[in-house]
Protein backbone atom coordinates (compact mmCIF):
# COMPACT_ATOMS: atom_id res chain seq x y z
CA UNK A 1 0.00 0.00 0.00
CA UNK A 2 2.74 2.42 0.96
CA UNK A 3 4.48 1.60 -2.27
CA UNK A 4 1.58 2.80 -4.37
CA UNK A 5 1.14 5.88 -2.26
CA UNK A 6 4.73 6.72 -2.81
CA UNK A 7 4.43 6.37 -6.52
CA UNK A 8 1.23 8.33 -6.77
CA UNK A 9 2.63 11.28 -4.93
CA UNK A 10 6.02 11.26 -6.51
CA UNK A 11 6.75 14.57 -8.19
CA UNK A 12 7.77 14.28 -11.82
CA UNK A 13 11.29 12.92 -11.66
CA UNK A 14 13.03 13.78 -8.45
CA UNK A 15 12.47 11.88 -5.29
CA UNK A 16 12.15 14.12 -2.35
CA UNK A 17 13.61 12.55 0.75
CA UNK A 18 11.13 14.31 2.98
CA UNK A 19 8.31 13.21 0.84
CA UNK A 20 9.37 9.61 1.13
CA UNK A 21 9.73 9.86 4.87
CA UNK A 22 6.32 11.45 5.21
CA UNK A 23 4.67 8.74 3.22
CA UNK A 24 6.53 5.92 4.86
CA UNK A 25 4.54 4.21 7.60
CA UNK A 26 6.08 4.72 11.00
CA UNK A 27 6.28 2.02 13.64
CA UNK A 28 3.29 3.49 15.43
CA UNK A 29 1.26 3.36 12.22
CA UNK A 30 2.17 -0.25 11.67
CA UNK A 31 1.21 -1.07 15.24
CA UNK A 32 -2.05 0.68 14.53
CA UNK A 33 -2.67 -1.55 11.52
CA UNK A 34 -1.69 -4.66 13.42
CA UNK A 35 -4.00 -3.77 16.28
CA UNK A 36 -6.85 -3.16 13.94
CA UNK A 37 -6.11 -6.40 12.09
CA UNK A 38 -6.12 -8.43 15.28
CA UNK A 39 -9.40 -7.01 16.48
CA UNK A 40 -11.00 -7.57 13.06
CA UNK A 41 -9.73 -11.14 13.18
CA UNK A 42 -11.26 -11.69 16.62
CA UNK A 43 -14.56 -10.15 15.61
CA UNK A 44 -14.57 -12.23 12.45
CA UNK A 45 -13.97 -15.41 14.43
CA UNK A 46 -16.76 -14.62 16.86
CA UNK A 47 -19.19 -13.77 14.08
CA UNK A 48 -18.26 -17.00 12.35
CA UNK A 49 -18.86 -19.03 15.51
CA UNK A 50 -22.20 -17.37 16.24
CA UNK A 51 -23.36 -17.64 12.65
CA UNK A 52 -22.39 -21.27 12.34
CA UNK A 53 -24.08 -22.10 15.64
CA UNK A 54 -27.26 -20.42 14.45
CA UNK A 55 -27.02 -22.27 11.16
CA UNK A 56 -26.19 -25.58 12.80
CA UNK A 57 -28.97 -25.54 15.38
CA UNK A 58 -31.53 -24.30 12.86
CA UNK A 59 -30.67 -26.89 10.23
CA UNK A 60 -30.66 -29.71 12.79
CA UNK A 61 -33.82 -28.45 14.47
CA UNK A 62 -35.71 -28.13 11.22
CA UNK A 63 -34.83 -31.71 10.21
CA UNK A 64 -37.65 -33.00 12.42
CA UNK A 65 -40.12 -31.25 10.15
CA UNK A 66 -38.40 -31.69 6.79
CA UNK A 67 -36.96 -35.21 7.11
CA UNK A 68 -39.24 -36.87 9.61
CA UNK A 69 -42.30 -34.99 8.35
CA UNK A 70 -43.71 -34.09 11.73
CA UNK A 71 -46.02 -31.13 11.46
CA UNK A 72 -44.85 -28.02 13.29
CA UNK A 73 -48.26 -27.54 14.82
CA UNK A 74 -48.33 -31.08 16.20
CA UNK A 75 -44.84 -30.60 17.60
CA UNK A 76 -45.81 -27.40 19.39
CA UNK A 77 -49.19 -28.53 20.71
CA UNK A 78 -48.86 -32.31 21.10
CA UNK A 79 -48.70 -33.50 24.69
CA UNK A 80 -47.22 -36.95 24.23
CA UNK A 81 -43.42 -36.94 24.37
CA UNK A 82 -42.07 -40.41 23.60
CA UNK A 83 -39.49 -39.92 20.82
CA UNK A 84 -38.54 -43.61 20.74
CA UNK A 85 -42.05 -44.48 19.61
CA UNK A 86 -42.36 -41.52 17.26
CA UNK A 87 -44.49 -39.24 19.43
CA UNK A 88 -42.91 -35.84 19.83
CA UNK A 89 -45.38 -33.44 21.35
CA UNK A 90 -43.26 -30.74 22.95
CA UNK A 91 -46.07 -28.84 24.66
CA UNK A 92 -45.36 -30.25 28.17
CA UNK A 93 -41.79 -28.97 28.03
CA UNK A 94 -42.75 -25.62 26.51
CA UNK A 95 -45.40 -25.07 29.18
CA UNK A 96 -42.97 -26.25 31.87
CA UNK A 97 -40.26 -23.85 30.74
CA UNK A 98 -42.60 -20.86 30.62
CA UNK A 99 -44.20 -21.77 33.93
CA UNK A 100 -40.94 -21.87 35.88
CA UNK A 101 -39.65 -18.76 34.09
CA UNK A 102 -42.67 -16.58 34.81
CA UNK A 103 -43.11 -17.93 38.34
CA UNK A 104 -39.47 -17.25 39.18
CA UNK A 105 -39.63 -13.73 37.70
CA UNK A 106 -42.85 -12.90 39.52
CA UNK A 107 -41.45 -14.06 42.86
CA UNK A 108 -38.01 -12.50 42.39
CA UNK A 109 -38.98 -9.05 41.07
CA UNK A 110 -40.46 -7.55 44.28
CA UNK A 111 -37.47 -8.76 46.29
CA UNK A 112 -35.06 -7.42 43.69
CA UNK A 113 -36.72 -4.01 43.51
CA UNK A 114 -36.87 -3.78 47.29
CA UNK A 115 -33.20 -4.64 47.60
CA UNK A 116 -32.28 -2.22 44.84
CA UNK A 117 -34.20 0.65 46.48
CA UNK A 118 -32.50 -0.11 49.77
CA UNK A 119 -29.10 -0.10 48.09
CA UNK A 120 -29.59 3.14 46.16
CA UNK A 121 -32.02 5.30 48.12
CA UNK A 122 -32.45 4.11 51.67
CA UNK A 123 -28.98 3.09 52.71
CA UNK A 124 -26.45 3.47 49.89
CA UNK A 125 -23.49 3.07 52.21
CA UNK A 126 -24.49 -0.17 53.82
CA UNK A 127 -25.82 -1.31 50.47
CA UNK A 128 -22.44 -0.94 48.86
CA UNK A 129 -20.51 -2.50 51.70
CA UNK A 130 -22.83 -5.33 52.64
CA UNK A 131 -25.32 -6.19 49.92
CA UNK A 132 -23.14 -5.66 46.86
CA UNK A 133 -20.70 -8.45 47.83
CA UNK A 134 -23.60 -10.73 48.79
CA UNK A 135 -25.20 -10.28 45.40
CA UNK A 136 -21.92 -10.75 43.57
CA UNK A 137 -21.42 -13.95 45.55
CA UNK A 138 -24.83 -15.25 44.47
CA UNK A 139 -23.90 -14.65 40.81
CA UNK A 140 -20.67 -16.59 41.21
CA UNK A 141 -22.15 -19.79 42.65
CA UNK A 142 -22.23 -22.48 39.93
CA UNK A 143 -25.67 -23.72 38.99
CA UNK A 144 -24.88 -27.30 39.95
CA UNK A 145 -24.46 -26.10 43.53
CA UNK A 146 -27.87 -24.43 43.43
CA UNK A 147 -29.30 -27.66 42.07
CA UNK A 148 -27.67 -29.71 44.77
CA UNK A 149 -28.96 -27.43 47.51
CA UNK A 150 -32.36 -27.63 45.84
CA UNK A 151 -32.26 -31.42 45.87
CA UNK A 152 -31.03 -31.67 49.44
CA UNK A 153 -33.02 -28.85 51.04
CA UNK A 154 -35.82 -27.43 48.89
CA UNK A 155 -37.27 -30.74 47.66
CA UNK A 156 -37.62 -32.33 51.13
CA UNK A 157 -38.94 -29.02 52.49
CA UNK A 158 -41.62 -28.86 49.80
CA UNK A 159 -42.47 -32.51 50.44
CA UNK A 160 -43.16 -31.73 54.10
CA UNK A 161 -44.96 -28.50 53.33
CA UNK A 162 -47.30 -29.52 50.51
CA UNK A 163 -46.92 -33.28 50.19
CA UNK A 164 -46.22 -35.25 47.05
CA UNK A 165 -42.69 -36.15 46.09
CA UNK A 166 -41.38 -32.62 46.44
CA UNK A 167 -40.24 -32.51 42.84
CA UNK A 168 -42.04 -30.07 40.61
CA UNK A 169 -42.50 -26.55 39.34
CA UNK A 170 -42.65 -25.05 42.81
CA UNK A 171 -39.23 -26.41 43.79
CA UNK A 172 -37.80 -25.28 40.46
CA UNK A 173 -39.30 -21.82 41.02
CA UNK A 174 -37.68 -21.66 44.43
CA UNK A 175 -34.24 -22.52 43.07
CA UNK A 176 -34.57 -20.20 40.06
CA UNK A 177 -35.77 -17.38 42.29
CA UNK A 178 -32.42 -17.38 44.07
CA UNK A 179 -30.57 -17.71 40.77
CA UNK A 180 -32.24 -14.81 38.96
CA UNK A 181 -32.43 -12.53 42.00
CA UNK A 182 -28.85 -11.19 41.65
CA UNK A 183 -29.31 -10.58 37.92
CA UNK A 184 -32.50 -8.57 38.37
CA UNK A 185 -31.22 -6.77 41.47
CA UNK A 186 -27.92 -5.56 40.07
CA UNK A 187 -29.49 -4.36 36.82
CA UNK A 188 -32.27 -2.60 38.73
CA UNK A 189 -29.64 -0.91 40.90
CA UNK A 190 -27.95 0.38 37.74
CA UNK A 191 -31.17 1.76 36.34
CA UNK A 192 -32.12 3.43 39.64
CA UNK A 193 -28.67 5.05 39.83
CA UNK A 194 -29.15 6.36 36.31
CA UNK A 195 -32.19 8.44 37.31
CA UNK A 196 -31.02 12.07 37.17
CA UNK A 197 -30.35 13.57 40.58
CA UNK A 198 -32.44 16.65 39.86
CA UNK A 199 -35.62 14.55 39.49
CA UNK A 200 -35.23 13.53 43.10
CA UNK A 201 -34.25 17.01 44.23
CA UNK A 202 -37.19 18.61 42.46
CA UNK A 203 -39.59 16.12 43.94
CA UNK A 204 -38.31 16.64 47.47
CA UNK A 205 -38.33 20.42 46.98
CA UNK A 206 -41.99 20.24 46.04
CA UNK A 207 -42.67 18.74 49.43
CA UNK A 208 -43.00 15.09 48.46
CA UNK A 209 -42.08 12.60 51.15
CA UNK A 210 -39.22 10.17 50.69
CA UNK A 211 -41.57 7.30 49.86
CA UNK A 212 -43.58 9.46 47.42
CA UNK A 213 -40.35 10.39 45.70
CA UNK A 214 -39.19 6.79 45.45
CA UNK A 215 -42.46 5.29 44.31
CA UNK A 216 -43.74 8.04 42.00
CA UNK A 217 -40.60 9.62 40.60
CA UNK A 218 -37.62 7.31 40.82
CA UNK A 219 -39.30 3.97 40.15
CA UNK A 220 -41.47 5.59 37.53
CA UNK A 221 -38.60 7.01 35.52
CA UNK A 222 -36.58 3.79 35.87
CA UNK A 223 -39.42 1.59 34.64
CA UNK A 224 -37.86 0.65 31.32
CA UNK A 225 -34.59 -0.24 33.01
CA UNK A 226 -36.39 -2.40 35.58
CA UNK A 227 -38.33 -4.17 32.84
CA UNK A 228 -35.09 -4.87 31.03
CA UNK A 229 -33.68 -6.30 34.25
CA UNK A 230 -36.69 -8.58 34.69
CA UNK A 231 -36.43 -9.82 31.11
CA UNK A 232 -32.74 -10.56 31.52
CA UNK A 233 -33.65 -12.53 34.63
CA UNK A 234 -36.29 -14.43 32.68
CA UNK A 235 -33.83 -15.22 29.92
CA UNK A 236 -31.49 -16.69 32.50
CA UNK A 237 -34.29 -18.73 34.08
CA UNK A 238 -35.48 -19.97 30.68
CA UNK A 239 -32.04 -21.22 29.74
CA UNK A 240 -31.04 -22.73 33.07
CA UNK A 241 -30.65 -26.48 32.71
CA UNK A 242 -28.75 -28.24 35.44
CA UNK A 243 -30.26 -26.78 38.60
CA UNK A 244 -33.79 -27.08 37.24
CA UNK A 245 -33.23 -30.60 36.04
CA UNK A 246 -32.21 -31.71 39.52
CA UNK A 247 -35.37 -30.49 41.24
CA UNK A 248 -38.19 -30.54 38.69
CA UNK A 249 -38.39 -34.33 38.35
CA UNK A 250 -38.24 -34.49 34.54
CA UNK A 251 -41.59 -36.02 33.77
CA UNK A 252 -42.62 -35.20 30.23
CA UNK A 253 -46.25 -34.64 31.15
CA UNK A 254 -48.44 -31.54 31.08
CA UNK A 255 -47.97 -29.95 34.51
CA UNK A 256 -51.31 -30.36 36.31
CA UNK A 257 -50.27 -28.41 39.38
CA UNK A 258 -47.21 -26.82 40.92
CA UNK A 259 -46.22 -29.81 43.03
CA UNK A 260 -46.19 -32.66 40.53
CA UNK A 261 -43.12 -33.59 38.54
CA UNK A 262 -42.79 -31.68 35.26
CA UNK A 263 -40.02 -30.98 32.79
CA UNK A 264 -38.51 -28.10 30.85
CA UNK A 265 -36.96 -27.84 27.39
CA UNK A 266 -33.49 -27.76 28.91
CA UNK A 267 -34.03 -30.66 31.29
CA UNK A 268 -35.20 -32.93 28.45
CA UNK A 269 -32.23 -31.85 26.34
CA UNK A 270 -29.60 -32.62 28.93
CA UNK A 271 -31.11 -35.92 30.00
CA UNK A 272 -31.80 -37.17 26.49
CA UNK A 273 -28.92 -36.10 24.27
CA UNK A 274 -26.48 -38.85 25.27
CA UNK A 275 -28.87 -41.66 24.48
CA UNK A 276 -29.92 -40.72 20.98
CA UNK A 277 -28.34 -41.50 17.63
CA UNK A 278 -27.39 -38.77 15.15
CA UNK A 279 -29.89 -38.39 12.35
CA UNK A 280 -32.74 -40.32 13.97
CA UNK A 281 -36.06 -38.82 15.05
CA UNK A 282 -35.32 -38.83 18.82
CA UNK A 283 -32.10 -36.89 18.13
CA UNK A 284 -33.71 -34.45 15.69
CA UNK A 285 -36.55 -33.84 18.13
CA UNK A 286 -34.04 -32.76 20.77
CA UNK A 287 -32.48 -30.37 18.27
CA UNK A 288 -35.92 -28.92 17.67
CA UNK A 289 -36.20 -28.27 21.40
CA UNK A 290 -32.82 -26.53 21.20
CA UNK A 291 -34.13 -24.44 18.31
CA UNK A 292 -37.09 -23.31 20.42
CA UNK A 293 -34.66 -22.29 23.17
CA UNK A 294 -32.59 -20.35 20.65
CA UNK A 295 -35.61 -18.56 19.21
CA UNK A 296 -36.81 -17.68 22.70
CA UNK A 297 -33.48 -16.15 23.69
CA UNK A 298 -33.49 -14.15 20.45
CA UNK A 299 -37.01 -13.01 21.36
CA UNK A 300 -35.90 -11.97 24.84
CA UNK A 301 -33.00 -10.01 23.32
CA UNK A 302 -35.29 -8.27 20.85
CA UNK A 303 -37.69 -7.40 23.66
CA UNK A 304 -34.88 -5.86 25.70
CA UNK A 305 -33.82 -3.73 22.74
CA UNK A 306 -37.39 -2.64 22.08
CA UNK A 307 -37.94 -1.58 25.69
CA UNK A 308 -34.60 0.20 25.87
CA UNK A 309 -35.48 2.18 22.74
CA UNK A 310 -38.87 3.23 24.07
CA UNK A 311 -37.31 4.20 27.38
CA UNK A 312 -34.81 6.43 25.59
CA UNK A 313 -37.51 8.22 23.62
CA UNK A 314 -39.42 8.99 26.77
CA UNK A 315 -36.39 10.63 28.37
CA UNK A 316 -35.77 12.79 25.33
CA UNK A 317 -39.25 14.16 25.20
Amino acid at each position, binding site marked *: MEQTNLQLNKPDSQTNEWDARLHHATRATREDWAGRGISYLCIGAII*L*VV*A*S*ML*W*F*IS*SKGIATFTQNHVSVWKFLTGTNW*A*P*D*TGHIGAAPMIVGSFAVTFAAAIVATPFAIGTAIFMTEISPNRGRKLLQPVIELLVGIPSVVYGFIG*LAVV*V*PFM*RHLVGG*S*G*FGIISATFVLFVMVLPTITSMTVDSLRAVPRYYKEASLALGATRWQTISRVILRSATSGILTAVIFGMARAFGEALAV*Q*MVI*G*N*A*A*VMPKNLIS*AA*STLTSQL*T*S*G*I*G*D*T*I*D*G*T*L*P*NNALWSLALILLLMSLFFNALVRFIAKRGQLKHER
Partner: protein
Amino acid sequence: MNNGSKLAMGIAAISLLLVGCGKATSSTSSKSSSSSQALSGKVTAVGSTALQPLAAKAGTNFTTKNSKVTLTVQGGGSGTGLSQVQAGAVSIGDSDIFAEEKDGIKADKLTDHKVAVVGMAPVVNKDTGVKNLKMAQLKQIFTGKITNWKEVGGKDQKIVIVNRAQGSGTRATFENAVLKGATAVKSQEQDSNGAVQKIVSSTPGAISYLAFSYFTNKLQAVSINNVTPTDNNVENNKWKIWSYEHMYTKGKPDAATAAFLTYMNSKTVQDSLVKDMGYISIHDMKVAKDAKGVVTQN
Protein backbone atom coordinates in the same frame (compact mmCIF):
# COMPACT_ATOMS: atom_id res chain seq x y z
CA MET B 1 -22.66 -31.74 2.06
CA ASN B 2 -20.51 -28.80 1.03
CA ASN B 3 -17.39 -27.58 2.75
CA GLY B 4 -19.08 -24.63 4.40
CA SER B 5 -21.59 -26.75 6.20
CA LYS B 6 -18.92 -29.18 7.28
CA LEU B 7 -16.96 -26.31 8.75
CA ALA B 8 -20.04 -24.96 10.44
CA MET B 9 -20.83 -28.33 11.89
CA GLY B 10 -17.33 -28.69 13.19
CA ILE B 11 -17.28 -25.32 14.84
CA ALA B 12 -20.70 -25.74 16.37
CA ALA B 13 -19.76 -29.15 17.65
CA ILE B 14 -16.72 -27.75 19.37
CA SER B 15 -18.58 -24.77 20.73
CA LEU B 16 -21.27 -26.95 22.19
CA LEU B 17 -18.62 -29.05 23.87
CA LEU B 18 -20.14 -32.23 22.62
CA VAL B 19 -17.90 -35.20 22.83
CA GLY B 20 -14.83 -33.63 21.33
CA CYS B 21 -12.29 -36.22 20.60
CA GLY B 22 -9.50 -36.60 18.19
CA LYS B 23 -9.79 -38.98 15.33
CA ALA B 24 -8.26 -42.24 16.37
CA THR B 25 -5.73 -42.82 13.68
CA SER B 26 -4.34 -46.27 13.44
CA SER B 27 -0.75 -46.42 14.37
CA THR B 28 1.77 -46.85 11.61
CA SER B 29 4.30 -48.60 13.77
CA SER B 30 2.22 -51.74 14.18
CA LYS B 31 3.82 -53.63 11.36
CA SER B 32 4.03 -56.85 13.27
CA SER B 33 2.52 -58.09 16.47
CA SER B 34 5.73 -59.67 17.65
CA SER B 35 6.37 -59.15 21.31
CA SER B 36 9.73 -57.55 20.65
CA GLN B 37 8.09 -54.47 19.19
CA ALA B 38 6.50 -52.08 21.69
CA LEU B 39 2.83 -51.42 21.12
CA SER B 40 1.92 -47.84 20.37
CA GLY B 41 -1.01 -45.82 19.13
CA LYS B 42 -4.06 -44.00 20.31
CA VAL B 43 -7.24 -45.61 21.57
CA THR B 44 -10.39 -43.65 22.34
CA ALA B 45 -13.36 -45.30 24.03
CA VAL B 46 -16.53 -43.26 24.33
CA GLY B 47 -20.04 -44.02 25.49
CA SER B 48 -21.85 -45.83 28.29
CA THR B 49 -21.45 -44.24 31.70
CA ALA B 50 -22.17 -47.64 33.28
CA LEU B 51 -19.07 -49.13 31.67
CA GLN B 52 -16.94 -46.00 32.01
CA PRO B 53 -15.46 -46.69 35.49
CA LEU B 54 -14.35 -50.20 34.50
CA ALA B 55 -12.99 -49.10 31.13
CA ALA B 56 -11.12 -46.21 32.74
CA LYS B 57 -9.54 -48.39 35.43
CA ALA B 58 -8.61 -51.15 32.98
CA GLY B 59 -7.30 -48.48 30.62
CA THR B 60 -4.99 -47.08 33.29
CA ASN B 61 -3.61 -50.54 34.03
CA PHE B 62 -3.20 -51.21 30.31
CA THR B 63 -1.26 -48.04 29.62
CA THR B 64 1.06 -48.68 32.57
CA LYS B 65 2.13 -51.84 30.79
CA ASN B 66 2.13 -50.30 27.31
CA SER B 67 3.49 -46.85 27.93
CA LYS B 68 3.46 -45.86 24.26
CA VAL B 69 -0.29 -46.30 23.95
CA THR B 70 -2.50 -43.31 24.69
CA LEU B 71 -5.89 -44.42 25.91
CA THR B 72 -8.79 -42.07 26.53
CA VAL B 73 -12.06 -43.15 28.09
CA GLN B 74 -15.06 -40.82 28.02
CA GLY B 75 -18.73 -41.05 28.97
CA GLY B 76 -21.55 -39.49 27.01
CA GLY B 77 -24.09 -42.29 26.96
CA SER B 78 -24.56 -45.49 24.98
CA GLY B 79 -26.19 -43.61 22.10
CA THR B 80 -23.20 -41.30 21.80
CA GLY B 81 -20.81 -44.28 21.90
CA LEU B 82 -22.63 -46.15 19.15
CA SER B 83 -23.03 -43.19 16.83
CA GLN B 84 -19.43 -42.05 17.32
CA VAL B 85 -17.97 -45.47 16.55
CA GLN B 86 -20.30 -45.80 13.57
CA ALA B 87 -19.07 -42.44 12.29
CA GLY B 88 -15.48 -43.63 12.75
CA ALA B 89 -14.72 -40.80 15.17
CA VAL B 90 -13.58 -43.10 17.98
CA SER B 91 -11.93 -46.51 18.08
CA ILE B 92 -14.30 -48.06 20.63
CA GLY B 93 -17.96 -47.31 21.30
CA ASP B 94 -19.09 -48.37 24.78
CA SER B 95 -22.71 -49.44 25.05
CA ASP B 96 -25.09 -51.05 27.56
CA ILE B 97 -27.29 -52.37 24.80
CA PHE B 98 -26.89 -54.34 21.60
CA ALA B 99 -26.32 -52.16 18.54
CA GLU B 100 -29.25 -53.98 16.94
CA GLU B 101 -31.58 -52.47 19.55
CA LYS B 102 -30.83 -48.90 18.56
CA ASP B 103 -32.51 -47.29 15.56
CA GLY B 104 -30.12 -45.57 13.18
CA ILE B 105 -27.19 -47.89 13.95
CA LYS B 106 -26.10 -50.33 11.29
CA ALA B 107 -25.21 -53.23 13.57
CA ASP B 108 -23.75 -55.40 10.79
CA LYS B 109 -21.00 -52.81 10.26
CA LEU B 110 -19.90 -53.04 13.88
CA THR B 111 -18.11 -55.78 15.80
CA ASP B 112 -19.35 -56.59 19.27
CA HIS B 113 -16.93 -57.30 22.12
CA LYS B 114 -18.71 -58.21 25.36
CA VAL B 115 -16.51 -57.21 28.27
CA ALA B 116 -18.72 -57.57 31.35
CA VAL B 117 -22.22 -58.25 32.61
CA VAL B 118 -24.29 -55.92 34.76
CA GLY B 119 -27.21 -57.04 36.88
CA MET B 120 -29.99 -54.59 37.65
CA ALA B 121 -32.72 -54.75 40.22
CA PRO B 122 -35.71 -52.73 41.36
CA VAL B 123 -34.94 -50.59 44.37
CA VAL B 124 -37.45 -48.98 46.71
CA ASN B 125 -37.35 -46.52 49.55
CA LYS B 126 -36.95 -48.35 52.86
CA ASP B 127 -40.20 -46.92 54.25
CA THR B 128 -42.38 -48.82 51.82
CA GLY B 129 -41.93 -52.09 53.69
CA VAL B 130 -41.69 -54.08 50.47
CA LYS B 131 -38.87 -56.58 49.96
CA ASN B 132 -40.27 -58.92 47.38
CA LEU B 133 -42.53 -58.45 44.36
CA LYS B 134 -43.99 -60.71 41.75
CA MET B 135 -42.86 -59.95 38.20
CA ALA B 136 -46.48 -59.20 37.27
CA GLN B 137 -46.81 -56.73 40.14
CA LEU B 138 -43.63 -54.98 39.11
CA LYS B 139 -44.99 -54.61 35.61
CA GLN B 140 -48.29 -53.24 36.95
CA ILE B 141 -46.42 -50.70 39.06
CA PHE B 142 -44.38 -49.38 36.15
CA THR B 143 -47.37 -49.28 33.81
CA GLY B 144 -49.38 -47.33 36.38
CA LYS B 145 -51.96 -50.01 37.25
CA ILE B 146 -50.82 -50.26 40.87
CA THR B 147 -50.38 -46.87 42.54
CA ASN B 148 -50.25 -47.62 46.26
CA TRP B 149 -47.80 -49.78 48.17
CA LYS B 150 -50.57 -51.39 50.24
CA GLU B 151 -51.77 -53.21 47.11
CA VAL B 152 -48.55 -55.23 47.11
CA GLY B 153 -48.30 -55.78 50.86
CA GLY B 154 -46.56 -52.60 51.88
CA LYS B 155 -47.53 -49.43 53.71
CA ASP B 156 -50.48 -47.25 52.73
CA GLN B 157 -48.29 -44.94 50.69
CA LYS B 158 -48.43 -43.54 47.18
CA ILE B 159 -45.93 -45.08 44.74
CA VAL B 160 -43.51 -42.57 43.23
CA ILE B 161 -41.94 -43.99 40.08
CA VAL B 162 -38.48 -42.76 39.16
CA ASN B 163 -37.55 -43.84 35.67
CA ARG B 164 -34.35 -43.47 33.70
CA ALA B 165 -34.28 -41.18 30.65
CA GLN B 166 -35.91 -42.52 27.50
CA GLY B 167 -33.34 -44.28 25.40
CA SER B 168 -30.99 -45.02 28.27
CA GLY B 169 -29.44 -48.48 28.19
CA THR B 170 -30.42 -49.32 31.76
CA ARG B 171 -34.03 -48.42 31.04
CA ALA B 172 -34.05 -50.49 27.86
CA THR B 173 -32.73 -53.52 29.74
CA PHE B 174 -35.27 -53.11 32.54
CA GLU B 175 -38.19 -52.61 30.18
CA ASN B 176 -37.22 -55.60 28.03
CA ALA B 177 -37.13 -57.86 31.06
CA VAL B 178 -40.08 -56.50 33.01
CA LEU B 179 -42.52 -54.66 30.77
CA LYS B 180 -42.04 -56.91 27.74
CA GLY B 181 -43.39 -54.43 25.23
CA ALA B 182 -45.85 -52.56 27.43
CA THR B 183 -45.40 -48.80 27.73
CA ALA B 184 -44.23 -47.38 31.02
CA VAL B 185 -46.42 -44.75 32.62
CA LYS B 186 -45.09 -41.19 32.25
CA SER B 187 -43.14 -40.34 35.34
CA GLN B 188 -40.03 -38.70 36.70
CA GLU B 189 -36.93 -39.37 34.68
CA GLN B 190 -33.38 -39.12 35.94
CA ASP B 191 -30.30 -39.41 33.78
CA SER B 192 -27.86 -41.24 36.01
CA ASN B 193 -27.55 -44.11 38.47
CA GLY B 194 -26.21 -41.68 41.05
CA ALA B 195 -29.25 -39.40 40.88
CA VAL B 196 -31.61 -42.37 41.11
CA GLN B 197 -29.75 -43.71 44.12
CA LYS B 198 -30.03 -40.39 45.94
CA ILE B 199 -33.66 -39.74 45.06
CA VAL B 200 -34.96 -43.22 45.90
CA SER B 201 -33.23 -43.27 49.26
CA SER B 202 -34.67 -39.88 50.22
CA THR B 203 -38.16 -39.89 48.67
CA PRO B 204 -40.90 -41.78 50.56
CA GLY B 205 -42.69 -44.31 48.35
CA ALA B 206 -40.12 -44.15 45.57
CA ILE B 207 -39.28 -47.06 43.28
CA SER B 208 -36.68 -47.25 40.55
CA TYR B 209 -34.03 -49.67 39.33
CA LEU B 210 -30.26 -49.67 39.68
CA ALA B 211 -27.19 -51.66 38.73
CA PHE B 212 -26.09 -53.96 41.57
CA SER B 213 -22.97 -51.90 42.21
CA TYR B 214 -25.11 -48.90 43.21
CA PHE B 215 -26.95 -50.67 46.03
CA THR B 216 -26.52 -49.02 49.43
CA ASN B 217 -27.94 -49.78 52.84
CA LYS B 218 -30.07 -46.64 52.54
CA LEU B 219 -32.34 -48.30 50.01
CA GLN B 220 -34.03 -51.65 49.65
CA ALA B 221 -33.22 -53.93 46.73
CA VAL B 222 -36.33 -55.91 45.84
CA SER B 223 -36.43 -59.64 45.12
CA ILE B 224 -38.60 -60.78 42.24
CA ASN B 225 -40.61 -63.99 42.63
CA ASN B 226 -38.42 -64.66 45.72
CA VAL B 227 -35.23 -64.63 43.66
CA THR B 228 -32.69 -62.33 45.24
CA PRO B 229 -30.62 -60.03 43.02
CA THR B 230 -27.17 -61.59 43.35
CA ASP B 231 -24.32 -62.24 40.93
CA ASN B 232 -24.86 -66.00 41.17
CA ASN B 233 -28.49 -65.69 40.17
CA VAL B 234 -27.52 -63.57 37.17
CA GLU B 235 -24.90 -66.09 36.07
CA ASN B 236 -27.48 -68.87 35.75
CA ASN B 237 -30.23 -66.53 34.53
CA LYS B 238 -32.52 -67.07 37.52
CA TRP B 239 -32.38 -63.29 37.81
CA LYS B 240 -33.64 -62.00 34.48
CA ILE B 241 -32.72 -58.31 34.51
CA TRP B 242 -29.16 -58.10 33.28
CA SER B 243 -27.28 -56.90 30.26
CA TYR B 244 -23.87 -57.08 28.69
CA GLU B 245 -21.46 -54.21 28.61
CA HIS B 246 -20.33 -53.97 25.01
CA MET B 247 -17.30 -52.45 23.38
CA TYR B 248 -18.05 -51.95 19.71
CA THR B 249 -15.46 -51.47 16.99
CA LYS B 250 -15.92 -50.65 13.35
CA GLY B 251 -14.11 -52.82 10.85
CA LYS B 252 -10.78 -54.32 11.82
CA PRO B 253 -9.39 -52.67 14.96
CA ASP B 254 -5.80 -51.40 14.84
CA ALA B 255 -3.13 -53.16 16.89
CA ALA B 256 -3.45 -51.03 20.01
CA THR B 257 -7.24 -51.30 20.09
CA ALA B 258 -7.13 -55.04 19.49
CA ALA B 259 -4.59 -55.47 22.28
CA PHE B 260 -6.76 -53.48 24.66
CA LEU B 261 -9.83 -55.57 23.81
CA THR B 262 -7.82 -58.75 24.40
CA TYR B 263 -6.68 -57.32 27.70
CA MET B 264 -10.29 -56.56 28.71
CA ASN B 265 -11.13 -60.21 28.11
CA SER B 266 -8.06 -61.55 29.92
CA LYS B 267 -8.12 -63.30 33.29
CA THR B 268 -6.34 -60.36 34.92
CA VAL B 269 -9.26 -58.07 34.20
CA GLN B 270 -12.18 -60.49 34.29
CA ASP B 271 -11.26 -62.32 37.49
CA SER B 272 -10.21 -59.38 39.63
CA LEU B 273 -10.93 -55.91 38.31
CA VAL B 274 -14.40 -56.67 36.95
CA LYS B 275 -15.52 -58.25 40.22
CA ASP B 276 -13.87 -55.63 42.43
CA MET B 277 -15.81 -52.91 40.66
CA GLY B 278 -19.19 -54.59 41.05
CA TYR B 279 -19.60 -56.04 37.56
CA ILE B 280 -20.03 -59.71 36.72
CA SER B 281 -17.32 -61.49 34.74
CA ILE B 282 -18.37 -62.84 31.36
CA HIS B 283 -16.22 -65.89 32.07
CA ASP B 284 -18.60 -66.83 34.90
CA MET B 285 -21.75 -66.64 32.80
CA LYS B 286 -23.46 -69.98 32.38
CA VAL B 287 -25.87 -68.59 29.80
CA ALA B 288 -25.66 -66.30 26.80
CA LYS B 289 -28.18 -63.78 25.54
CA ASP B 290 -28.47 -62.46 21.99
CA ALA B 291 -29.74 -59.17 20.69
CA LYS B 292 -33.32 -60.44 20.55
CA GLY B 293 -33.18 -61.47 24.22
CA VAL B 294 -33.05 -65.22 23.52
CA VAL B 295 -31.11 -66.98 26.27
CA THR B 296 -29.09 -70.13 25.60
CA GLN B 297 -27.05 -72.34 27.94
CA ASN B 298 -23.32 -72.08 27.45
